[in-house]
């Protein structure tokens, strides 16, 4: 069973690596942020499977922390690109 969970964890890492290709290519900032979000989901999966492979239930807490904070980057990104009154018009919104 341990080997199976390790294999799953490794396959999940590979899917994360695939998502990082999108983060590298872009083209828009939003594509990169989406890739970051996907990395976050991947890492939750890796933490779960690694915890099962090692028989260490405390790794679930790491998955919980990753889940709770997963929306942080997206929320900050949306706040940073939303047009604001204080900003100049025609400002670079990327």
């Amino acid at each position: 069973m341990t080997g199976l969970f390790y294999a799953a964890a490794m396959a999940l890492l590979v899917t994360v690596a695939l998502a990082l290709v999108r983060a590298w290519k872009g083209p828009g900032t939003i594509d990169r942020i989406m890739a970051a979000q996907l990395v976050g989901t991947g890492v939750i999966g890796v933490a779960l499977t690694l915890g099962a492979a090692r028989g260490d239930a405390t790794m679930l807490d790491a998955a919980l922390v990753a889940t709770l904070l997963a929306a942080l980057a997206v929320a900050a990104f949306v706040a940073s690109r939303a047009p604001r009154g204080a900003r100049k018009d025609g400002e670079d919104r990327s």
Partner: protein
Amino acid sequence: MTGLEYAIAGLLFMGVFFYAAGSLGLLRFPDSASRLHALTKADNVGLGLVALAVALHWGSVAVAAKIAIVWLFAIFTAGATAQVLGQSSKDETDPRP
């Protein structure tokens, strides 16, 4: 292998498959709005299947409850972020004042 182990292996395989589908979708889909589907749907199905496999492996109600919270919060987050990212990608392609 017992029946339970077959079930766990099957769930893990399906989970990884959906994760892979999500990553491929993010790579292959033509624009941001359609990539959002891959990100917020396929990946969270994958996470759900992997979570189920891990919960079956632990075979404890307390651990399973914690894993359920992880997954529920993940889809809740996906729902919220999908909306704001969709809004953002709409602003990007349709630059209204």
